[in-house]
C-alpha cells in the first residue's frame, strides 16, 4: 500500500491503533540494547513461552526503551481500558506469574514501577491515552526520575513497537511529512526550521536552518543529506536508543530535511557496533519504502528521495564530518581542513548537510506543532530539549530529556537522585572525551551551549558522566585522554604526538613519578593542541585536562607532592583503599591478617606503629576506612574499627604490656620541639617526634592530656582509663608534659624560642562553642554543648532539668543528648535538616534513639523563651527543603510556621571554634572562619618555625584527621631538621601471609554487642562491647586483602 494522501494515512493509523490498544491484554517488553543487556530478550522469550503454555489470550510484543535503564528489564502490561502498567527489574522467573495474573486481569503488584494513563506526544491533540485506574500506583511523571523531564524526542520511546510503522503512524507519525510535502514549499519548511531556532544536537550547536540554507543555495546537480549516527563518546548512547526505539522519527525527519534542502539521497552513517539499531533502521526503511514515504513521487508530489545505511567501522574520528564523508567515499577516515564546509562541498564534492540523529528527530514535531511551540521550550539562545545519557556514580541511570536551560543540579540530584550510597558527587563530565569536568560547586550552571562552554566544557552529543568522591580526577583524565589518543587518526602532529605526550605525563603522575613542572607542561601542550590540531577531535581532546587542572588542581598536587590519591584509584600510590583513606594510613590488611593468624602481639605492634591511640580510635574513630572497604560492595564492609579494638583490648586485658610497648626509638638528636595542646594531634606528634629522638615538650592548658578525648567525648563512649593507658605509653617514651600552661597567659612563643625550641606545633583545637545567636541565650538553663560535656567530664555535678532540648545534628549534639539522658532528662534533639543529613555518625544516632532520645527534624530555633529568668521553652521555625546545595543536600528554608516546645533546659551544639585571641596573640594568620592558615603540604603557618594542625586548622573535625596532622607534622619537621626522610625507619618488618582466597569468606558482618540497659540514669558505663574472640576471628576472614596485588601481566 502506498500512502499518497491524508486518507491513506488515516487507514494506516487505524491499523496502528488496533496494535497499540488491542482488545485483549498486551504485554510489551522493552527491547532496546539496554534492556537486552539486562536480560529482556530472555524475559521476552519466557513470556511468549508462558502465554503458549498457559493458553492465555494475551499478546506479547516488543517496544523500545522507556529511558530508565537502571530499572531494566521493563515490561509494559496493558489491559483494555486500564492504564499501561510498567513493571521493573523483571527476570524470566517472573514470567509465569506475570502471565497468570494478567490472564486473571491482575498485575504482579510487587514489581510495579509506575503506570501510564496519558502521554502528551504533541502530535495528537489529546495525547496518547490509555485507560485509567490503579489509584495506588504512581503515574510515571510522579516518579522523580521523570518529573522534571520534558520528553519531545523520546515521547514515544518505550511505548510503541519500533518495528511497526503503523504504531508510529497511530501516534501521529508521518503526518508532519505529509503536512510539509503537501501543504508547504521547501522554502516554507526552511523558514519554519530557522524560526524554530533548532541548533545542531551533535554538540556544536550550529543553527540547523542556516546550514540547510547554505546547502540549498549552493547550485549543484545533486545534493546529499547525512545522518551522523557515529555515536562514540564513552558513556553516551542517546542516538542508539533513538534509532532502536523510534527509527521512523529519524526517517521522517530526514525526508523533511531533504525536501527543504533539495537533496535526492540520504545516508545514515551508523557504526557497526550498533547492530540492533541497524536492523531496526533497515526494517523501518523497508516499511517506509513500501508505504511510499521513500522513493519516487513521495506523497504524490514530484519529490524523489531515498535513504541508505552506511556502516562505519567504529572509528571515533569518523564522527568528525569531513572524516565521515571520507569514510563514506571509501577512503580512510581522516578529516580535512575546513573550509570548504560540507554544506558547500561535501560528499563527492556536492553540497551535503550532515546532522546528528537527534537533530533530525526534532523535525517532525517542529513541523507539526509549529516553530513558535518549539521555540517556547528552552532558553532564548537554545530552544527545545536535549537528551542526555545520565550515567556514572548516580542513583538513577538512564536517558533523560530535559528542556535546555535546566540546571545541572536538577538533572543530577532531582532526576538522577544524587550520589550512590550517599556518597558525595564531585563532578560531572559533559561532552564525553571532548568535554570537561564540571565541579559540583558549579552545578547551578544552566545546561545550554554557551554556559557549558563558559565553564570549560561543551554540550557535546549528550553524554553526562557523574563522578563522586571515589573518582580520581587524574585517573579519569587519563582515561579520557587514552581514549582520544587511541582514536586519533594520526594525520596531524599535535594530536598524534601531543596527546601521547600528555598521556605519558598523566601516567607518570598517577604512578607517583610526577613532578610539579609536569603540570605546566600539560597546560602548555593542552593549549597548543587546542589551537593547532586539524580537527575537532584533536582540538577538544585536551579539554578534560584543562578543566581538571582548573577545578581539581589540588588532586594533581596531592599525587605529585604527597604521592597520594585521595579517591583510592591510582593503586601504585597506596596499599589498599582502607589504608589510603585512613588519615593515619594504618596498615589495615596487615593487622587484620595478623589477627587471622592469631598473632596478637604482632598485630598490636603493627597497629601501634601507625597509631599511638589504638584503643581510643578503636572506639571513637569515624572509620572512613570502612566506607572504602571493597567488601562493602559484597555484603557490608569489614568491621575494621571493631577488629582494631578487639586486638588492643585483648592485649590490654592480658596486662602483659611491658614487652609489647617497646616501639623503635632513635638515638637522641638534641633537637627540642614544642607542642601546644595535648589533644589527639598534639599527642600523635609528640609520640612520633620522641621516637625519632627529639626532645619533646607538650604544653596543655587543662590539667590532663587528651583534649576532646578527655573533655569532650563522654565516658560511656570512651572510658577514661583506656585513654590514660595510651597517654601513659607516650609519657613513658619520655615526652614532657606541662599541664595548666595556657599559651599567651603562662607562656609565649618568644619564651619558647628563647628556650631553644626548634619548632612549635600549634594543636589547640576548637574548644569554644559557637553561640546560637537567638534571643534568650543568656537565660538560666541554656548550656553550651562543649562546655557542658567538659563540665560533666571534669566531674561537675549537674542538674539539667527534666525536659532538655539539644540543638544541632553533629556528634557533639548526640553526646550532649546521651549525657543529658544519663543525668535523668527527657531529651529532644532539634535539627534543621533531615535525619539523613545529620553529620553525626549513623551508629551514634541509632544508639541515641535506642536510649530514648527523640528527634525533631526540619526545625530551627527562633528564640529561647523564659519565665522568671529561666528557660521555659523554645520557639521553633518549621523548615522545608529547598534547592540542593553543592554538597547534594537540600538546603533548609524557613516556613511561616512557628511553634513552641516546652522545656527547662537547652543545650546548644551547633559547632565549635578556636580561641582566636590566643592565636592572634601568636601572630599567625587566620582564615575568615577563625582557623589557622597553613600551607597544605608543609603545615607551616605565617609565623616562621610555627606549624599547626588538627581542628585549629580544619575547624571541628575528627579524631583521626587530627592525629593524621600530628603524624604528618612529625614526618615533615623531622625531614626538615635532619635533612633526610627517616620516618619509615620507625617501622619494624612484620611479615604475614599474602595468600588470598578467590571467593569472599566469613559471611555477614559481625556486630559488637551493646550493654542492654533500660535505665541509663547515672550510668556512664561503656555501652558498646568488644567483639567476641570468635566474632573477631570470623570478621578478620572477611577481609578481601586488597593489598595483595596481581602480578604484572605480560603484555600480549
Amino acid at each position: 500500500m502506498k500512502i499518497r494522501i491524508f486518507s491513506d494515512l488515516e487507514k494506516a493509523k487505524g491499523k496502528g491503533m488496533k496494535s497499540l490498544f488491542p482488545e485483549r491484554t498486551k504485554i510489551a517488553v522493552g527491547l532496546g540494547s539496554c534492556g537486552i543487556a539486562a536480560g529482556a530478550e530472555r524475559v521476552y522469550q519466557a513470556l511468549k513461552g508462558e502465554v503458549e503454555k498457559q493458553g492465555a489470550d494475551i499478546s506479547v510484543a516488543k517496544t523500545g526503551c522507556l529511558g530508565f535503564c537502571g530499572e531494566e528489564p521493563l515490561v509494559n502490561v496493558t489491559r483494555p481500558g486500564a492504564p499501561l502498567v510498567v513493571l521493573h527489574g523483571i527476570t524470566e522467573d517472573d514470567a509465569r506469574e506475570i502471565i497468570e495474573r494478567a490472564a486473571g486481569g491482575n498485575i504482579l503488584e510487587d514489581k510495579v514501577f509506575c503506570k501510564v494513563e496519558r502521554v502528551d506526544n504533541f502530535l495528537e491533540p489529546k495525547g496518547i491515552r490509555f485507560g485509567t485506574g490503579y489509584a495506588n500506583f504512581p503515574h510515571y511523571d510522579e516518579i522523580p526520575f521523570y518529573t522534571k523531564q520534558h520528553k519531545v524526542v523520546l515521547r514515544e520511546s518505550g511505548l510503541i513497537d519500533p518495528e511497526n510503522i503503523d504504531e508510529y503512524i497511530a501516534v501521529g507519525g508521518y503526518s508532519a511529512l505529509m503536512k510539509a510535502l503537501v501543504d508547504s514549499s521547501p522554502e516554507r519548511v526552511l523558514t519554519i526550521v530557522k524560526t524554530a531556532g533548532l541548533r545542531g544536537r551533535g554538540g556544536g550547536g550550529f543553527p540547523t536552518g542556516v546550514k540547510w540554507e547554505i546547502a540549498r543555495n549552493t547550485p549543484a546537480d545533486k545534493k546529499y543529506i547525512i545522518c551522523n549516527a557515529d555515536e562514540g563518546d564513552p558513556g553516551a548512547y542517546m542516538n542508539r536508543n533513538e534509532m532502536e526505539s523510534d527509527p521512523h522519527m529519524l526517517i521522517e525527519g530526514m525526508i523533511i530535511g531533504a525536501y527543504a534542502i533539495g537533496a535526492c539521497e540520504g545516508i545514515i552513517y551508523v557504526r557497526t557496533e550498533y547492530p540492533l539499531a541497524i536492523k531496526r533502521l533497515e526494517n523501518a526503511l523497508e516499511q517506509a519504502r513500501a508505504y511510499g514515504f521513500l522513493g519516487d513521487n513521495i506523497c504524490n508530489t514530484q519529490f524523489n528521495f531515498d535513504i541508505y545505511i552506511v556502516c562505519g567501522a567504529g572509528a571515533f574520528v569518523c564522527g568528525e564530518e569531513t572524516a565521515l564523508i571520507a569514510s563514506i567515499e571509501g577512503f580512510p577516515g581522516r578529516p580535512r581542513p575546513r573550509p570548504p564546509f560540507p554544506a558547500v562541498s561535501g560528499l563527492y564534492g556536492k553540497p551535503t548537510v550532515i546532522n546528528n540523529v537527534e537533530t533530525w528527530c526534532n523535525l517532525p514535531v517542529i513541523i507539526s506543532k509549529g516553530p513558535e511551540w518549539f521555540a517556547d521550550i528552552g532558553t532564548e539562545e537554545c530552544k527545545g530539549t536535549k537528551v542526555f545519557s545520565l550515567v556514572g556514580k548516580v542513583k538513577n541511570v538512564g536517558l533523560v530529556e530535559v528542556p535546555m536551560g535546566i540546571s545541572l543540579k536538577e538533572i543530577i540530584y532531582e532526576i538522577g537522585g544524587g550520589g550512590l550510597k550517599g556518597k558525595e558527587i564531585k563532578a560531572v563530565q559533559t561532552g564525553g572525551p571532548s568535554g570537561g569536568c564540571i565541579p559540583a560547586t558549579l552545578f547551578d550552571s544552566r545546561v545550554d551551549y554557551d554556559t557549558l562552554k563558559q565553564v570549560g566544557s561543551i554540550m557535546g552529543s549528550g553524554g553526562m558522566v557523574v563522578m563522586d568522591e571515589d573518582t580520581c580526577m587524574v585517573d579519569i583524565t587519563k582515561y579520557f585522554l587514552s581514549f582520544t589518543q587511541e582514536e586519533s587518526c594520526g594525520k596531524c602532529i599535535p594530536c598524534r604526538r601531543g596527546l601521547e605526550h600528555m598521556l605519558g605525563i598523566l601516567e607518570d603522575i598517577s604512578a607517583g613519578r610526577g613532578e610539579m613542572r609536569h603540570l605546566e607542561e600539560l597546560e602548555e601542550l593542552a593549549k597548543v593542541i587546542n589551537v593547532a590540531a586539524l580537527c575537532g577531535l584533536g582540538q577538544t581532546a585536551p579539554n578534560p585536562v584543562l578543566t581538571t587542572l582548573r577545578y581539581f588542581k589540588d588532586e594533581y598536587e596531592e599525587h605529585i607532592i604527597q604521592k597520594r590519591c585521595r579517591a583510592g584509584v591510582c593503586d601504585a600510590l597506596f596499599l589498599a583503599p582502607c589504608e589510603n583513606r585512613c588519615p593515619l594510613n594504618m596498615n589495615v590488611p596487615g593487622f587484620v591478617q595478623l589477627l587471622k593468624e592469631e598473632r596478637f602481639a604482632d598485630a598490636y605492634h603493627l597497629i601501634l606503629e601507625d597509631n599511638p591511640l589504638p584503643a581510643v580510635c578503636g572506639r571513637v574513630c569515624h572509620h572512613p576506612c570502612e566506607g572504602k572497604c571493597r567488601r562493602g560492595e559484597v555484603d557490608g564492609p569489614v568491621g575494621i574499627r571493631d577488629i582494631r579494638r578487639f586486638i588492643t583490648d585483648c592485649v590490654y586485658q592480658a596486662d602483659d604490656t611491658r614487652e609489647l610497648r617497646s616501639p623503635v626509638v632513635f638515638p637522641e638528636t638534641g633537637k627540642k620541639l614544642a607542642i601546644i595542646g595535648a589533644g589527639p594531634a598534639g599527642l600523635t606528634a609528640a609520640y612520633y617526634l620522641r621516637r625519632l629522638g627529639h626532645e619533646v615538650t607538650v604544653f596543655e592548658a587543662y590539667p590532663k592530656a587528651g583534649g576532646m578525648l578527655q573533655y569532650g567525648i563522654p565516658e560511656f563512649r570512651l572510658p577514661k582509663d583506656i585513654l590514660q593507658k595510651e597517654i601513659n605509653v607516650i609519657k613513658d617514651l619520655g615526652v614532657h608534659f606541662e599541664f595548666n600552661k595556657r599559651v599567651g597567659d603562662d607562656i609565649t612563643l618568644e619564651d619558647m624560642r628563647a628556650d631553644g625550641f626548634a619548632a612549635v606545633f600549634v594543636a589547640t583545637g576548637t574548644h569554644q562553642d559557637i553561640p546560637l545567636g537567638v534571643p534568650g541565650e543568656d537565660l538560666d538553663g541554656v548550656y553550651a554543648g562543649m562546655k557542658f560535656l567538659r563540665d560533666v567530664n571534669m566531674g561537675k555535678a549537674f542538674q539539667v532539668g527534666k525536659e532538655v532540648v539539644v540543638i544541632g545534628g553533629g556528634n557533639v549534639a548526640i553526646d550532649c543528648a546521651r549525657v543529658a539522658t544519663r543525668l535523668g532528662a527527657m531529651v529532644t534533639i532539634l535539627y534543621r535538616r533531615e535525619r539523613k543529613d545529620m553529620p553525626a555518625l549513623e551508629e551514634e544516632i541509632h544508639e541515641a534513639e535506642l536510649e530514648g532520645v527523640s528527634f525533631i527534624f526540619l526545625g530551627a530555633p527562633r528564640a529561647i523563651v523564659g519565665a522568671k529568668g529561666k528557660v521555659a521553652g523554645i520557639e521553633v521555625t518549621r523548615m522545608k527543603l529547598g534547592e540542593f546545595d553543592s554538597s547534594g543536600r537540600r538546603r533548609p528554608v524557613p516556613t511561616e510556621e512557628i511553634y513552641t516546645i516546652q522545656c527547662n533546659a537547652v543545650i546548644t551544639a551547633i559547632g565549635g571554634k578556636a580561641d582566636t585571641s590566643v592565636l592572634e596573640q601568636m601572630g599567625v594568620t587566620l582564615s575568615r572562619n577563625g582557623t589557622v592558615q597553613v600551607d597544605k603540604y608543609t603545615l607551616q603557618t605565617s609565623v616562621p618555625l610555627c606549624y599547626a594542625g588538627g581542628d585549629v586548622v580544619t575547624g571541628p573535625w575528627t579524631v583521626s584527621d587530627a592525629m593524621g596532622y600530628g603524624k604528618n607534622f612529625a614526618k615533615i619537621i623531622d625531614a626538615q631538621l635532619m635533612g633526610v626522610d627517616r620516618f619509615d625507619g620507625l617501622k619494624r618488618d612484620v611479615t604475614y601471609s599474602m595468600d588470598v582466597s578467590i571467593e569472599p569468606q566469613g559471611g555477614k558482618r559481625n556486630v559488637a554487642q551493646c550493654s542492654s540497659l533500660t535505665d541509663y540514669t547515672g550510668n556512664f558505663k561503656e555501652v558498646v562491647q568488644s567483639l567476641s574472640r570468635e566474632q573477631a576471628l570470623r570478621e578478620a576472614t572477611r577481609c578481601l586483602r586488597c593489598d595483595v596485588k596481581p602480578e604484572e601481566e605480560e603484555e600480549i
Partner: protein
Amino acid sequence: MITVTINNKKYEANEGEYALQVLKREGIEIPYLCYHEALSPYGACRLCMVEVTGGARPGITTSCTLVVTDGLEIQTEAPEVVRIRKVLLEMYLAEAPGSEAIQELARKFGVERSRFADFDIEAKGDRCVLCGRCVRVCNEVLGVGAINYASRGTKSNINTPWYGVSSACIGCTACAYVCPAGAIDIIDSGDERIMETWNRTTLKLKECVETKEFFATEKVIDHVYSKALDLPEDLKEVSAGSRMRRRASEFLPKYLRK
C-alpha cells in the same frame, strides 16, 4: 589582483591562491612540511600556522589552506604563532630524530632540543614526519597509488598494502624527491632499483643502449608511454643524456648543412 597585508606590510596576490604561496613568493620565512607546489593542500603538518587578524575568520590557521581574499591581514610572527610553531618543532624532533633535514629546519626556527624525545619510535622508522607528500605525489601526480597511510594515531605510518612488496610501485622515486625529511631510501644496484623503504620492492632497470648506464626502471618507461601516447618509440631505450645527444646528432647535421 588583490591586496593582502602580511606583518603590517601590503602585498599583491592572486585571487584564489593560498596564503603560503604568497609568503613563499615574497620570501617571508615560514616553516612547512606537507605543502608542495605540485600537490593539493593537505593541512597536516600544522607548521605554517599564521594568525589572521583581519577578515572574515580571525584566528590562528594554516596558511597552506588559507585562501587569500582582498584585505586579508595576517601575522607570521605573532607570539602565539611562534609558541605553537616551536612546540610543534619539538614534537617533530621527537618524531623524526634521525632526520637531519628536520633538525636543520628546527634549528632555523630556534628549536634545538625536544622535551618529548623519549618516545618509542615505532614501525614507521625514525625520519618520516607523516607529511603525506609521497602519498599525494604517488596518487595525485603519478596516478600509481603504490603507497598510502596505514594504521592510525601514533601507529600511523605510510606503507605499501599489507606492508608487502608492492606490485604497483613503478620505482619512479618521486616519493623520495618530494620528501622533506629525507626519509625514503632507494638503492640502485646493478640492474636493480631497490625501494628500501617500501619493503624492498625491487624493480628492473633499463640499460641505455648507448652509454650502458642504467637510467630508469622498465615500469617507469611503460608508465610514461602509457600516459603520453605520441612519444617517439626510439627514446625508450636511452638515458636522458643519450637522448639529448641522439636528438642533437639528428638535428645538428641539418643545421650545419645549411
